[in-house]
């Protein structure tokens, strides 16, 4: 008689993409209309995350009600802009291309020694101010495109690409988001290219982070969703340094996921004991 023993954890990162797409289209429609709008604006980089959100928004609101803003900097790769244009063409959404080179360079002319990190963050925040300005002109809400892996690892710029009114993909790990993208018909070259913030020439997320999303998503799933402890993770084969590094990234970047802390003085403080849903009254 053979007894089956499961020593390895079950890490199921597959999603029912059809069901997820249906929920997310309804989410976009519902949250935008209840806020009194009917349109949406997003920054389209040509990567898989923003392309997926573009497809979802086009289906949820109708392509004429979605504005994609393509905002290259002089070091952005031509392939990124080309992929963004391909998504615009397929989905039929409206678009606007605004180069951010002039304003970024004008600023850093005064600070020529600024690090790559400062420049990358400044670009992300420049794009954010453009999106919010265009959202006022277009009468729509800004859609977020940060996925769960990025949010947990803090791989994003606070008040930059992390800023949005609503985020349909923030509870999907990168590997799950890819399944949704494939289901929605995001073109293959976009699905298959290595994830990049296009922060500088040749930059890739996985190169910068030092691990792949496929690896880290398995770890994040057990740590965050299933609440596995350090020793339990190591016991099933995760390297201690990897576990510690990821735990540190999650903790150290938590501030990016929260609103600023307010010093409490009164009996009812806005960030603490003044508790209302954001959808209050709608």
């Amino acid at each position, binding site marked *: 008689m053979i007894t089956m023993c499961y020593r390895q954890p079950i890490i199921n990162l597959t999603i029912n993409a059809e069901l997820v797409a249906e929920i997310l289209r*309804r989410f976009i429609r*519902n949250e935008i209309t209840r806020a009194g709008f009917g349109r949406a604006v997003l920054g389209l980089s040509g990567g898989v995350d923003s392309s997926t959100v573009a497809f979802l928004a086009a289906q949820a609101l109708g392509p004429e009600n979605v504005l994609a803003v393509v905002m290259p900097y002089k070091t952005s790769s031509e392939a990124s802009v080309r992929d963004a244009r391909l998504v615009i063409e397929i989905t039929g959404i409206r678009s606007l291309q605004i180069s951010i080179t002039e304003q970024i360079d004008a600023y850093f002319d005064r600070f020529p020694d600024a690090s790559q990190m400062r420049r990358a963050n400044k670009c992300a925040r420049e794009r954010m101010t453009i999106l919010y300005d265009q959202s006022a002109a277009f009468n729509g809400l800004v859609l977020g495109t940060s996925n769960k892996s990025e949010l947990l690892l803090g791989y994003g710029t606070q008040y930059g690409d992390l800023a949005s009114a609503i985020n349909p993909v923030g509870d999907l790990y990168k590997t799950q988001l890819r399944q949704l993208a494939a289901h929605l018909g995001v073109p293959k070259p976009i699905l298959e290219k290595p994830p990049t913030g296009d922060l500088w020439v040749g930059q890739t997320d996985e190169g910068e982070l030092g691990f792949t999303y496929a690896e880290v998503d398995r770890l994040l799933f057990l740590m965050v969703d299933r609440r596995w402890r350090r020793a339990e993770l190591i016991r099933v084969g995760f390297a201690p340094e990897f576990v510690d590094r990821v735990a540190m990234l999650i903790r150290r970047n938590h501030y990016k996921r929260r609103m600023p802390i307010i010093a409490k003085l009164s009996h009812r403080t806005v960030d603490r004991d003044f508790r*209302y849903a*954001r*959808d209050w009254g709608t």
Partner: protein
Amino acid sequence: MMTAPDDRSSAKVLRIALAQCSPALGDVERNLEMHLRLIEQARSQQADLVVFPELSLTGYFVRDMTPDLAVEPSGAQISRLLAAAGPMAMVVGFVEESPRRRFFNSVLFAEGGRIIHVHRKVYLPTYGLFDEQRYFAAGDRIQAFDTARFGRMGMLICEDFWHLSAAAIMQAEEVDMLLCVSNSPARGVDGPKIRTAETYENICRAYAQLLGAVVILVNRVGFEDGLCFWGGSMVVGPDGQIIAHAPLLDEALALAEFDPLELRRASISTPLARDERLLLTIEELVRIKRQRYS
């Protein structure tokens, strides 16, 4: 051909309307209008009973609005609904303010224009995404009640339904119908069905068979702060088969017809209630109480 000692064979088929709606968050006036519209529709469909979901007058994430949204069962808002329902029975979810100034997550059953029973949610989930104990007082009773047309009825609210003890009490009460109103959010999208919807369906079908009762689930739809309420309201017969199933995610006024004679047939084929040994259960519970609390 057998004849029943009393003429139950003439019992009328019951028509139940499941008002799977999407209440506005914190707008009682708007929700009252929605209730009135759905009551009107249910009446035009000759429903005997219309069931609204948990907190149907207020929406779910009421948080600090709780005291602002609370009503008394005898208040003007609920009186308007009672008048509109007329002879049709009705189940409505609301924030109840008690005479002792406590706020409960409550559901009322009304028949013939008057309130027969109010159930106050006993198990207030306060974990994960839930935070109910912060805002609500917990109910301290799980009791069935008799109705004119629906036999003996038990009502539970969402989390109550997940506690086996609540179902066991309803079995001891020998209910004909067990009704659960809920605001269940979708979680778990890795399988063919939403995981929470799958679990609810399993519980409904198991309870229906184990209690030999009709189980009615009415769950809301719509979104609040990114949470998706999945709907999927259903009526399950005492044989565990689904009689009616409202759609997932969409608003609907779903109608289900139920022949009360099915209860008699179920109690003949699977007489679990007859064989239940209530005193044994009570004695064992008293023993456990003695061991745990002495």
